[in-house]
């Protein structure tokens, strides 16, 4: 007459979703989220009042500042939130409560990470909406001014077309998507570091250093593959940088998109695929270290 009261699956999307939802709520309640978002909104919003150039310069500076703010704040938010995840759960003893239940460690990590991804996603969407609003507002101002001061209909049509082409265009969307991708990649990398880090300060510092090195990894890779004439120790160090660190520069395409270069969709999907592969690898590495960690 004995039958198992509850069947337990090895992997449950429901459990992961519940963990992700809980993590998202937890992160939203943290002050760091509001501060980061507030700063980002201030930077993007204030760019409207700080630029006093010709309309082409204005739009370019608005785009550069806006996209730069989205990039830095999405990365910082992901970094700080992820660095705090494991230490906070350990400190609050939540980690033990969750893992005492039949929740595999992989699900726990995945749920936590998805919560951070959702948080970064919400922030990027909010910042992008404000950015589009600022660009749209400026576009309307410039258009109204141009219509008021231009009498020749042919000149006016050309001017309107030029202004519209300089302001918001859909080419910016893939650029913002790649900013998000870079932020989630860096968040996963931070999670991997936090699985073996002794404190969240260590995690943050190491992640920042990796972020900086990741942007010059391409230089190290080219030097190493070209067989540069350095000392053996230099060559070893360069090889290590090229092999171990991700090339974050590959995801920086917004600078060119802001000045009108469109990213081909095939290339966009290739970069996206490669970014997701990086994310998956760092997630698996985090799981390998976390699964053997003594809690």
């Amino acid at each position, binding site marked *: 007459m004995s039958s198992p009261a509850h069947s337990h699956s090895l992997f449950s999307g429901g459990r992961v979703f519940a963990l992700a939802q809980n993590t998202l709520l937890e992160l939203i309640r943290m002050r760091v989220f509001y501060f980061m978002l507030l700063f980002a909104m201030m930077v993007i919003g204030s760019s409207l009042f700080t630029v006093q150039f010709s309309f082409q310069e204005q739009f*370019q500076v608005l785009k550069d500042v806006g*996209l*730069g703010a989205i990039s830095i704040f999405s990365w910082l938010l992901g970094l700080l939130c992820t660095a705090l995840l494991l230490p906070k759960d350990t400190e609050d003893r939540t980690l033990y409560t969750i893992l005492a239940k039949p929740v595999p460690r992989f699900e726990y990590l995945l749920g936590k990470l998805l919560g951070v991804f959702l948080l970064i996603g919400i922030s990027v969407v909010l910042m992008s909406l404000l950015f589009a609003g600022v660009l749209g507002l400026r576009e309307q101002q410039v258009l109204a001014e141009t219509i008021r001061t231009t009498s020749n209909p042919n000149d006016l049509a050309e001017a309107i077309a030029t202004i519209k082409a300089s302001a918001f265009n859909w080419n910016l969307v893939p650029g913002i998507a790649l900013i998000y991708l*870079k932020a989630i990649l860096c968040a996963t990398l931070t999670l991997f570091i936090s699985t073996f880090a002794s404190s969240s300060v260590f995690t943050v510092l190491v992640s920042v250093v990796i972020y900086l090195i990741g942007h010059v990894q391409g230089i190290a890779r080219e030097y190493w*593959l070209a067989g540069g004439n350095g000392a053996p120790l230099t060559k070893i160090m360069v090889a290590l940088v090229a092999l171990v660190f991700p090339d974050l520069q590959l995801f920086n395409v917004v600078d*060119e998109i802001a000045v009108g270069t469109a*990213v081909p969709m095939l290339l966009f999907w*290739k970069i996206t695929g490669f970014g997701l592969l990086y994310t998956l690898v760092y997630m698996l590495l985090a799981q390998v270290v976390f699964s053997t960690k003594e809690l």
Partner: protein
Amino acid sequence: MKRFLLPIAFLVGFGILKLPVEKLLLSQEQAAGFQAAQLNLHVRSQLGQMGFVAALSGFRAVMADLLFIRVGTAFQKTEWGRMKLLLESATQLQPKAVMFWEMAHFHMAYDAAIASRENRIQQPSETLRRRAEREYMHIGEQFLLDGISFNPDNSRLYEHLGRFYSKRLYDHERAAEAYATSAKKPGAHEYVGRFAAYELAEVPGKEAQAYQQLCHFYKTGPRVPTLENLIHRLEEKLAVPPSERVYSPSNQETVSPAQAR
């Protein structure tokens, strides 16, 4: 320590596999017009340590904008040498931003060059002032040529080059070439093709070729006064028989340049 060996080995193994993909992706991005910026010691000296780190960390465009704002300050103080250095750095950081190349060209080839020529107080020698003017004009030209090398399909840069050769160097043959190249680029203004023919009309020995081009524009495009005057002048110069002339000043309606655009 043992539990870290597997991740490290995995990272290195993944690193070996990812290198060719990264290299391929970079080359594809470069072919599509991305990752063209040059971060060198010259840029670093203009940006400072922290600015250079920021530029390396994916905030290249913002750093380029900051340098460009500093150009404005240097312009107000008429510090032409400093402007040149700042403009070089800004254009190296954002080589796809056509506006930076244009402004760098205008500031050097026109503002700095003319200011140097007129700078009688600080430089009494006219020879030296003329020399400084030529040097700045050359710098301005070089900005356009470098800009073209990064943006070969941009009509505006070729148009500025044509204007520079025509109005500053009085080299009408090169001006005609630059205007003609601009006219072939996507998004070129309609008048640029006519400008190429105008310039060609000023080149000794090319009048017949210019006349053919001008007649084509006369038949197909707006009949602006400059076009009609040039056709009339060339018909006189080339002694075109009255029966073959396309333009007769007495009974033609003209279109103003503003209307023509």
